[in-house]
């Protein structure tokens, strides 16, 4: 059977990661920005799985597992923060949330 080169997976991962970065940089809705982060995490997970395949080692899977756990925790807290921000400022535009500079 024909084989898929490992680098294709890595290229796919890199592509998804770059798209995540682009989403982070160019999107203004804070929720979308957050989703871009999830996209980046997923891209990295793909790399982990691919390398786990290459090395025939289950450790990569474990890393993905932990990334998922952390992502879930991060989503819970992050979305709670977004809720609070929206409560206080009635906006989801990330450019409007810049009081840290003061």
């Amino acid at each position, binding site marked *: 059977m024909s084989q898929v080169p490992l680098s294709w997976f890595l290229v796919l991962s890199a592509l998804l990661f770059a798209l995540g970065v682009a989403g*982070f*940089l160019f999107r*203004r809705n804070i929720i979308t*920005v957050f989703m871009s982060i999830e996209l980046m995490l997923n891209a990295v997970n793909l790399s982990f799985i691919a390398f786990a395949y290459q090395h025939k080692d289950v450790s990569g899977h474990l890393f993905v597992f932990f990334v998922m756990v952390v992502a879930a925790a991060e989503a819970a807290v992050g979305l709670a923060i977004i809720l609070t921000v929206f409560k206080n400022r009635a906006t989801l535009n990330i*450019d409007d949330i*810049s009081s*840290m500079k*003061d």
Partner: protein
Amino acid sequence: MLLWLIPLFPLAGFAINGIFGRRFPKALVNAVAVGSVLLSFLWVLKTLAAGAPLNGPITERYFTWIQSGTLSIGVDMTVDRLTAVMLLIVTGIGSLIHIYSIGYMAHEGGYYRFFAYMNLFMFFMLTLVLAANYLLLFVGWEGVGLCSYLLIGFYFDKKFATDAGNKAFIVNRIGDFGFSLAAFLIFRQFGSLDFSVVSGQAAGAPTAMLTAIGLLLLLGACGKSAQIPLYVWLPDAMAGPTPVSALIHAATMVTAGVYMTARSWPIYVHAPQAMETIAIIGTATAFFAATIGLAQNDIKKVFAYSTVSQLGYMFVGVGVGAFSAGIYHLMTHAFFKALLFLGSGAVIHSLSGEQDMRHMGGLRGKIPWTFWTMMCAAVAIAGVPPFAGFWSKDAILLAAHAHAPWMYWAGTVTAGLTAFYVFRAMFLTFFGSYRGNHHPHESPAVMLAPLAVLAALSLAGGWLFKVPEFLSAVFPAQEVPEDAGLMAISTAAGLIGIAVAYLMYVAKPALADSFADGFKGLYWLVYNKYFVDEIYDAAVVAPVVDGSRAVLWKGVDAGLIDGSVNGIGARCRNLGSVLRLWQSGNIRSYATWVLVGAVVMIVAIGMAGGAR
């Protein structure tokens, strides 16, 4: 032998009372406080019985406390005959005074706090006594200082009490400074702080070093045991409750200096100059404090100066090489001085807080138990044979005569003065007619019982417990010729002092006033304690305070330190106000910078040949 149990009992009592005492009923507080000390006393008895005859030290090592380089300090405890004497004094007298306190403190606020502190004191004192090295001894040393401070300032809503506490604490710091330096030198010389190592190697050490160590230790002992020039805190320490004065500032803590000096005998016997210094300081203190005691009107102040004076005696004993005589006197003094304080406490208690002897008098019939027990102590301290004070005082004076006759004579005069002021206090308090306006009442049995026990010990303790023979195994032997003549002279001095006191305060009361008028200048000087406090104020305290204020605070702290810190802060603010332009607060900009940083990092790693 489970030595650690001895200090543990009071510590447990302290913890229980300290944490829960506020909610406990008084009976439970009493049970815990007194019970813990009694248990400790019983454990001491059991331990000593098990360890008899204690020909050598029994050391128990528990764990390594500090390990740094060649310095290794363990929490070790040791028992030898010297420790045994101290343990019995501390726990025995401590138990009696705890019992006494139940009655004395019954109507005071902070009841549980008092007992918690007392138990804590017992813990630290026992640690001090049991310690097998200088550092652990120092722990107890500082701990008893802390408890002394806490208990002097027990009535913390009164300013004089807190001031007295501070004074005790600060003056003791000077002594502790000396002690610390001595410990450093000991470690430098012997490479260890264990008593056993020090005593084994002291003979081979250079005399100059030993003299330095001895003098520095003496400085520490002067602070703790209230010797010239650091005695000034002890009279003020009478601001604490009377049981505290009896336990800490008469019977146990203040004698820690004597104990420590005796414990360091291997150093001192090879440093004769240091020994000489001790003896001279002891003689001077004994005489000097006795003269001040002549003119005091506060009953507790009289006994306070008496304590200073008697401690001077012990130092004479230690200084002339009669270590066992010093410890002997330490023990008898613990009996009769604790009794005197407790008795005066009973007097004060019966007069609802009156301390001025000019407002007492004629109490003999009203509080007979107190009178008779105190009288036992008075004859003991006056050196009337065959009571306790006679034996120990004579042992010291004989040794002093063998060392230097002038010390004997000074001691004899002091003995006369001692007899005089003690009996002056007794006569002023118990004889004549009552000059106050309170209604004296006898103290409860729980206070009188310890008095009775101590009275018995004051009368019989001297020939009952022959400490010098018991300690002959510990200390180097010293030949002191028996001299009945000298004994008779010093005894006579005491009797003369009693007689003069009787003459001046009972037979012809007017004589005292005319005497005071006749030597107006001298009386004025003595009455004001030679203005030592005022001299210290002017010579030491004021310059230090003013110097701190003008130079350290205004100049160094406000000008240099604050200036530089504020300056750095201001520069940072200036820099930050420029840099903050970068901080737009816009998350997407930050993300962009992170990305740029990542790119730079990757390029840099790539240039360096990859992350391999």
